[in-house]
Every structure is written in C-alpha cells, then in structure tokens.
C-alpha cells in the first residue's frame, strides 16, 4: 500500500504520468502504476458523459473507454477506410452520419463497409463557413466527419467542442485536432493480391494504432482493412502488437469474441 501511495505522490508532483511511468520501467511497481492509471481513467470517465455509441469490436477494444464516446472528438490520420470502419458501427445501429468538407469521400466503399447511404449526408464544400456548417450538422446528426481547413483557430475548436458536449455528437476529424480524445493512425500497410503487373488489390493488413489523450501507451492491433470480402476484422493469428497488459487483463478473451461475432455476422 505504501508503494502505491508513493507512486501517487510521484504522479501528482510531476503532473505528467507517462514520464513517471517510464522511469519505473521493468519493475513490479510498473504494473501497479498502470493498474492505478486505469482506475483513475475509469473514475474520471464516470464523472464525464461516458455514453458510448456502437462501435465495431475490432476497433472498440483499442479505444479509450471501449468505444466511441458521445460528445468528444477523435482524430483520424488520413485514412478513409479507417474512417468508414468507425462510421459503420453507428450507421448500422441507426445513427445518421455527416461528412463535412471531404469531397473525395468514396461513397461506394462506404456502402460496402456497411454504412447506410440513406442516413449519410455529405457537405462536400462548406467553404468559409466550415465551423458554422459543422456545428449545425453536429446539432442534428450523431456522428460527424470533418476536415478543418488548414489550421482551425483555438476559439473555434473550443466552441465546437462545447457544442459537441452539449449535443452528444461524436466528431471524427481527418487530421490533427487539439482536443481529441484519441488519435487513430495506420502503419505497416500490406496489400495482397497484387503482383508485378498481375492480379489486383484484394485485401490489406494494416496496424491501427490508437494513442489516447489521457496518456498511457498507444494500443495497436493488426486488422484486415479491408479483408477479401470488403469487410474489416482482426487478423486471425494472435500476434497482437504492443497491446498493454492492462488491455489484456481488462478484456480477457476479446479476440475470440471478435471472431465469434464475425462468424455469426458472415
């Protein structure tokens, strides 16, 4: 117990958690730190609005809080298919989705990913009124994708954030966003089915990394995005890259559940 108190003191003295955790590497205390961090996050989460919207399990387990939360913003690093994977869950559950300022959004791919086009609204060119349009769309639609023009000013960011919190809409920002709950990015993308002048693109394995604002190690997983049937799911082999221990403890057996879900859905 005394160890735990020391760590708490450490954390409050240094303010930042991750450097403190980094200095305590490779010792039993480190697991305690992570455990406590997780508990703090959970306790903080209960004080905020923590209603989550339905998210595909393969991605939900990477996100802080176990799913997309209402009233916050997420930043997605330049990947339309990851964006569609995030939209597919809420859309299938009946949410309306809006896409503001992304004229090149591939609607056909969106339909194949399971987004209901009847409940998808696009505003390809908001122009000067980007902030007003995004806020108006976020007022009425559950999930809003947007790409800010160049750099959004701090005041507009905070106004939009307040609006989101009030309305309970989820904002997915293509590109960096100062107050994002988590940042999702892709790396190590491997296409299969294509050779040197032969075949065609058929499936891709990619590592999705989620770094959360609350700190902690980024979580990542290897996903099929898309798989040969144009869906997305976790790669079968249990070689999950860099999933922290807290993750494993909190979600025992998630991998199998995910596969079960897919077999049932397929």
């Amino acid at each position, binding site marked *: 117990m005394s160890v735990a108190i020391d760590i708490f003191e450490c954390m409050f003295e240094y303010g930042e958690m991750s450097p403190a955790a980094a200095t305590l590497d490779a010792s039993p205390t480190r697991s305690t730190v992570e455990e406590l961090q997780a508990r703090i996050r959970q306790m903080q989460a209960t004080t905020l609005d923590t209603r989550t919207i339905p998210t595909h399990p393969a991605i939900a387990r990477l996100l802080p809080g176990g799913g997309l939360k209402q009233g916050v913003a997420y930043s997605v690093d*330049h*990947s*339309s*298919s990851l*964006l*569609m994977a995030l939209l597919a869950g809420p859309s299938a559950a009946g949410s*309306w989705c809006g896409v503001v300022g992304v*004229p*090149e*959004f*591939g*609607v*056909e*791919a*969106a*339909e*194949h990913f399971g987004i209901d*086009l*009847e409940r*998808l*609204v*696009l*505003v*390809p*060119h*908001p*122009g000067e*009124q980007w902030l*007003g*349009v995004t806020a*108006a*769309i976020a*007022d*009425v*639609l559950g999930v809003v994708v947007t790409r800010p023009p160049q750099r959004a000013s701090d005041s507009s960011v905070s106004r939009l954030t307040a609006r989101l919190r009030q309305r309970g809409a989820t904002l997915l920002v293509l590109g960096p966003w100062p107050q994002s709950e988590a940042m999702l990015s*892709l790396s*190590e*993308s*491997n*296409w299969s089915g*294509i*050779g*040197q*002048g*032969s*075949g*065609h*693109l*058929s*499936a*891709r394995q*990619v590592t999705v990394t989620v770094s959360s604002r609350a700190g902690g190690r980024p979580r990542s997983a290897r996903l099929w995005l*898309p798989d040969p049937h*144009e869906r997305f799911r976790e790669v079968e082999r249990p070689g999950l890259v860099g999933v922290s221990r807290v993750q494993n403890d909190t979600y025992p057996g998630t991998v199998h559940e995910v596969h079960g879900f897919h077999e049932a859905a397929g």
Partner: protein
Amino acid sequence: MRRVGSGFAGPERTIVLWCPDWPITAALRSLSASGTGLRASFPASRSAIARAVGPDSPLALIDAGLVFACSASARRDGVKRGLRVREAQARCPDLAVLDYDSAVDIRLFEPVLEAIEQTMPGVQVLRPGTCAVRARGPARYYGGEEEAALWLLDALDALGIHGARVGIADGPFTAEHAARSPQRQRIRIVPEGGSAVFLSEMPVGLLGEPSLATLLRRLGIRTLGEFARLDAADVEARFGESGARVHALANGLDSRSVVPRVVPEELDSSAGFEPPLDRIDQVAFGCRALADRFIEQLIRAKLVCTSIRIEVESESGEFSERSWLHPRSFTAADVVDRVRWQLQGSGSIDSGVSSRITSVRVVPESVDAIGNHEEGLWGTGLDERVHHGLSRVQSMLGHGAVVTAVVGGGRTLGDRRNLVAWGDRPAVTKSTAEPWPGQLPTPSPGTVFEVAQPAMVIDAAGVAVDIDDRGTLSGLPAQFSPDGRTLRSVSAWAGPWTIDERWWDADTSRRASRFQLVDETGAAWLLVLENHEWGTEARYD
C-alpha cells in the same frame, strides 16, 4: 326497363365533344410550346423534333414499343394503332416518333375544358380528348341543340383545335358514338328516343367488353340491334349484372348521367415587382408575403404541398422555371429559400441577377391532404429534426451544397457516384442491375478525387510510361508520382485495364486505361492513363 324503374326517368340528353387524335394534338401543341424556346425544361431532342414536325407531317406516339396514336397523314401511309415501331417506320419512312406521355394529354386538355366551361357549365371529362355536357340547359339557352353544338365548336376553333366533332343523343354512350360516326357533318344529332335505331347497325365490339363481344359473335350476334332484341331477363340470367348493363346500353337506355367536374381551385400565387428588382435578397424579401399567402391558401384547402414549380420572369423577357421537391412539405420559409436558390444558382446571396426580375409565380405541382402530413402526438422525432438542421445548412450554402449519395451503375468511379441534393429525388440514369463489364474489381477505393489529379509514371530508365493502341506498355512502371510532387517507387502494380466506352459517339466516348500502383509505404493508388496523360483518380487508404 324493369330494373331502373322508379328513379330513372329515361336517359338524359347529352352532348359529347370528341377531339379526334387528341394525343397527337396534345403532343404537337406541347412541342410547339417548347419550340418557341420559352420553356427550358424540355430536352433538346424534343425541340429538335418540334422543328422537324409540322402540323401535317406524319407523327406517331409510342407506348411500350407499340404505336399508341398516329396523325392523319401517318394513317394515310398505313400506320395504325398497335403496330410495332419498326413496322410503322417501314410503312412510313419519314415518320417522326415520340414517346407517349399521358400527363401531357391531361394537362393540355385543361384549357379546352376551361373554354367549354365559359360556353356552357357542367363539363364531365370522359377521357382526355372527350367530354360530356348535359344538353338541356345549353339547348334552351342557345335556342336549340344544334346551335349549342355550334357554339361549342366555335369555342374550340378559337383555341386552334380544328376537327372536333359533336354528338347529341340520349345518354353519353350513344352521344359519343354519334360524335364518332363517320360522316361529313361535324354535328350528329340522334333524336330523342331514336338511340336504339341509331345503334342497331353498330358492331357489338363497341360495348367495351371484349370477352362478351367475342362470345356474342360466336353466338351469331353481330350488331347491337341483334343484341338489344334479346330479352332483358334472359341476358341478366346468362351474363349477370355487367351483361344487363351493356344490354341497356345497346337498347339506348344509358342510365349514366353527366356528373359535372368540380372546378379545381386556383392555388398558385404570384407577385409582380414594380419597379423590377435587380438584387436577389430584395426579390427573396418581396416573395415573403407571396409565400405566406401561398401556404395559407393551401392550408385553407386542407392541403400540403410536396412539390412546387417556381416561374421567374425578368425584364428582358427571360423566363426560367424549375420544379422543387420537398421531402416533407413546404413551409413559407422553404418556398422563399427555393426562390432564392433558383435565382442564385451557384452565386452568393448578394450577387445581382443578369436582368431585373419583374414577377415570380409559385405553382403547386403535387399536393396531398393535410391529414397525411400531420405530426403524431409525440412528434415525428429524429427525422424531422435532421431535416430542419440540414435545411438550415442548405439556406447557408445553397440547395446543392447538402447532398446524399446513391451508388449507380457504370464503369468508372465517377459514373457510379451519384450525388443528390437533400430533398430531391435521386435520378440514377444507369442501373446497378446490369453487369457493367470493365468496372474495377473490389475493394472500392476509400478516397475518390472529384477531379483526377495530374500524375506521372516513369520506367526504370526515367522515361514516361505510355500505352499503345494494342494495350502494350512502353515500359514497366518503376517510379510514380500520384500528386505531381513527390516521386515514389513502385513496389507492386497491376493493369492496364482498358475501357473503351461509347466509341460510336464522338462527344461522350472515352478510352482510358486504369492501373493500380502500390508505393513502398504500402499506400495504393488508382491511376488512369487517358490521351497519353496520367491522372490519379482514387486512393486506397
């Protein structure tokens, strides 16, 4: 007549007016309206036909591949109703062919009815081109049935509709056949009580019951007179209710009476501007009262409007009209928005108009009973809210700025993506049900650029890769630049998939080769080589 005994005081004297070949007359009139260039809503091909088709040139209207109606000159060449198009064209090589549109028939008959109503009240439309009026009143007013008929024909001649014919007899059935009877005079009057004699020589096919007519012919009964001579009780026993009804018709005892149509209420509103206005916001402001009045009238008639047509006239004589749909029903503010969008096009609200606006007219195109659009006790919830929010964005950015997407058919990504303005009806021209050979293999790219970005692909020697007419590449792609700035090396590639679309049409033909390229970071791109120039059409990200 035993069956109709008590309330039936014999058939009513009826005037029937028949315009022969009404579908042709209507089509020619609608063509000449479009030919003057006033109405921009007609496609170009129609106005081209309008120039080619004179009032006397052969014309046929086609419905489901068969001739539905044809003009007199076409009929002289042997074209008749029910022929296949190919055969009709073989019989009459300079035949102009148009698609039959029943809405045009009905719409153009409306002015005819109005003209008749000014001559004599209580018109019943039997079908477009044919209408019935009770004869008693007009005959007394104009001093005789023939005079009344002459007045009627005068009214039609004044509209420019020549060749109409009138029949006057007991009941609409006999009167219609009197009007259609082959003779020189345009008016045929069957004297009171003379219907049975008039009808007796006509074939049984006129009864309008094909199966009964066939049966009667097989029984040796060929004319209405022979049918009428059968005993009414026997006919009812053998052929039932409907048989008894047509038997009464054959006897000249038409129990139907003329039911005058209810004149539809005038629901359109217009506003004139004096002096003419040259700023869109002024016009929009001026239309507020108009929109309020328009909606108020509809509500008073217990109607809501789901589609309106806005007609704008300007000082220089320009006339623009457009139909606007609404996913729910129009409110006054929605109407003002539509007026503004129509004037604005893609410009901004404070931009001027090319010619000053003199008048704006709002016409309801489709209306519905207000009861069907009433909100439920608990409101209609989310969708209503979504619609209001999106309409707000539309009023900020313009009608076409908020869109929903529909995936259509086609070979290219651009063809398959159809964007529809919020509230409009999706117009997918190419069906997804067809196979579309040559379309890209799945998965579909997540990012599809609106306009292909200029790109570059070079082979190992640094020479731009090109393709010859036989589809052979000049070199293997080694490096490429999807955005024209950074050069990436090719780690995998596939293609070319060549499409050669609509090669028979110089305006829309397209020949292009598609390639998929993967760079060293694992990002994949769809590049198109068209006219020896590379472009990036989409990214798989």
